């Protein structure tokens, strides 16, 4: 393709990407370096239905003058990244010095909101991504072997978890696993333990969230693999059969190598999606036991009573972008190398 043709095709998309993706990211980055102005506090008499009281309030005019002088706020550099609610460098250093065992150190780290969220996010990503790949592949193989009358209905049913809106799916399960719900109640009877609750124990909550994540995403990888399976050349399978390959060997040496590009595609999508895990935490009311990085941002932006901290949310967003980049690097390098080989 000539360069000019290429440019004339790509520029609208490049322009939109720049405007709606690059510019906001830069703005978030800038915002994370600033904090709000000092608030000018004054004491006033406040009367209401329950009597009068001296309370503090913000002197709006004085604060507004400060704001007008420097609309961006006070520049603090990377402080938002290093404070307790993010990387907590000081706290980590202190704990490293005082903790006697690694266990103690881990406990201290897990007491910090960012690391707590990071550990869950990484665990979730590390378990859900491969499980979704394996489960989706197995379902695709099974469906592919079904007689064709059953294929349509089976495909539709297998896709259901993916079609259901994540929040609704999570909420339905949430009610079912309540200690008084159908699953929660049954588990209590099976284990003869009235205190057993899937929502109360952190471990069980993590397991519930991870199983939900696999249940929800497996259909995606199933349908992609199923489509891929239709393109496996029959001749190759036949020649493998003639060479005496059993079913497992056909899958291992013919089908899997053929589907490898799809594996990389799904792994990439799933890594990004799972790293941003969010809806199940809201749906399952799980924030007491499990928080994710996305949840931290949400909490900053929709805290109680309009208590929003934009700088903090911006810093977490940036740390997340860096996290996604680190996670994707190995997959991207692999893809790059395979393209190099082809060309």
């Amino acid at each position, binding site marked *: 393709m000539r360069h000019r043709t290429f440019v004339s095709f790509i520029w609208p998309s490049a322009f939109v990407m720049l405007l709606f993706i690059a510019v906001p990211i830069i703005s978030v980055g800038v915002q994370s370096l600033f904090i709000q102005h000092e608030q000018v506090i004054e004491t006033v008499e406040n009367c209401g239905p329950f009597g009068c009281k001296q309370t503090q*309030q*913000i002197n709006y005019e004085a604060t507004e003058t400060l704001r007008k002088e420097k609309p961006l706020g006070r520049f603090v550099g990377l402080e938002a990244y290093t404070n307790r609610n993010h990387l907590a460098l000081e706290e980590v250093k202190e704990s490293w010095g005082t903790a006697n065992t690694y266990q103690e150190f881990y406990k201290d780290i897990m007491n910090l909101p960012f690391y707590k969220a990071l550990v869950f996010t990484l665990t979730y990503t590390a378990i859900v991504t491969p499980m979704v790949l394996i489960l989706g592949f197995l379902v695709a193989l099974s469906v592919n072997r079904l007689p064709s009358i059953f294929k349509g209905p089976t495909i539709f049913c297998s896709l259901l978890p993916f079609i259901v809106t994540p929040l609704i799916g999570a909420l339905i399960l949430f009610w079912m696993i309540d*200690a008084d719900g159908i699953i929660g109640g049954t588990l209590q009877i099976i284990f003869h333990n009235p205190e057993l609750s899937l929502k109360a124990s952190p471990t069980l909550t993590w397991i519930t969230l991870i199983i939900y994540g696999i249940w929800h995403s497996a259909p995606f990888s199933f349908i992609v693999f199923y489509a891929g399976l239709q393109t496996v050349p029959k001749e190759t399978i036949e020649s493998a059969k003639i060479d005496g390959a059993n079913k497992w060997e056909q899958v291992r040496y013919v089908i899997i190598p053929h589907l490898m590009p799809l594996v990389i595609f799904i792994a990439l999508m799933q890594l990004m999606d799972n790293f941003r895990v969010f809806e199940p935490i809201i749906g399952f009311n799980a924030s007491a036991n499990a928080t994710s990085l996305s949840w931290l941002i949400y909490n900053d932006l929709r805290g109680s009573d*309009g*208590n929003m901290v934009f700088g903090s949310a911006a810093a977490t967003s940036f740390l997340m972008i860096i996290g996604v980049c680190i996670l994707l690097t190995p997959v991207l390098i692999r893809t790059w190398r395979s393209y190099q080989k082809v060309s």
Partner: protein
Amino acid sequence: MFRQILLVLILSLFSVAAYAGCGINSGSVRVIANDFPAIHAVGDAAKECDGGGVEISINYNKDHKDIHVAALTANPAEFTSSIVANSTFVDLHNNGLIRPLNEYVEKYGDGISKNQLITIDGKVMAVAFMANSAHLFYREDVLKAAGQNPPKSFEELLTVAKAIKDKGLMEHPLGGVFKSGWNVGNEFVNLYLGHGGELFKAGTAEPNLNNAKGVAALNMMKAMTEYMNPDFLTHDSNANQALWEGGKIALVHLWGSRAGAVTDGENSTSEIENSTKFAGALTVGGGSTPAAALWWDGFVIAANIPDADAEATFRALANGVSLKMAQANQEKANWIIKGATPTAAGVGVSATAQAGAHPYPMVPFISSLHGAIGSEIVDFLQGKESAEQALSDVEAAYITVAKEKGFL
């Protein structure tokens, strides 16, 4: 004579007809409000003024508090009024987004008592119409079966709960609005105020929780969880109402605005409803102040709107919070409207207010502290760390946020 009477009657009929439009001829009234039955009652009454040149729209939204600051910051503002509570009022007031109402109160405030006015430095900034607080709900029949009297303090609450559990009447007799986040933070604030604690060092934004009173409040919460459904950290007010209506709990310290809902003849059996009784908020730690903060709900008028719209909004909402509305919707809230009498469902809130409970603090930094409490004390309730550690985490988390917001 007869003709004169007839004339007067006809004339008065006309004046009533004119009154149906509340006498407002022009203006646009746009209200953003929370979404619960009492607010709907106010909104419906305000809507009676709709028509005849004035247009009234009311947006009921559970997330109103996340929207209203941005919506009222715009000029002209998206809404002419917001229905607020003490906590959400602070956000608007601190940003200079609401206007003084003195002039309107003088002109159109006949039906509003002085008690309803929120006055800051002499300027009326909001008009309150209902009061709310957590207070005791108990099941008379279950307590009787366990041979117990209604508790007066949180310590007695534990004794009664234990008796009910020991008798095998209920597995988890105690309810609690302990959902992690704002709700569980609110329980702590209530108990801490009940212990006589001050949330901030006097006159500053410095937190003041990590002390013996804070530890005592946390230990009381932990002791309560022993008698609660194991899922307590996911239970908000709605969940507690459902547990109550399902007859799963016999005691709970719950919002007064739920008292009407659990005795409305819906979603429950008459057996449960008839033995549902209310009492004032409990005391704690031998103190005499009820361990529950007092709340009000009221309306404010936006600053960034034309004066004509502001006036129309005030008149419409004054009609919304009229005595007529309060009398027609008695069971929906504890109205603090001139002439309104408390109902059976309102006794809890009235008793709490009379016993001298503190209002929820109206300082600008309270929401940051409340948020920090809500997310940091959860580890303690799950037994993962000590009370002192949890409280020092609260202070550290709050200080980080308060610095970013420019309070410290």
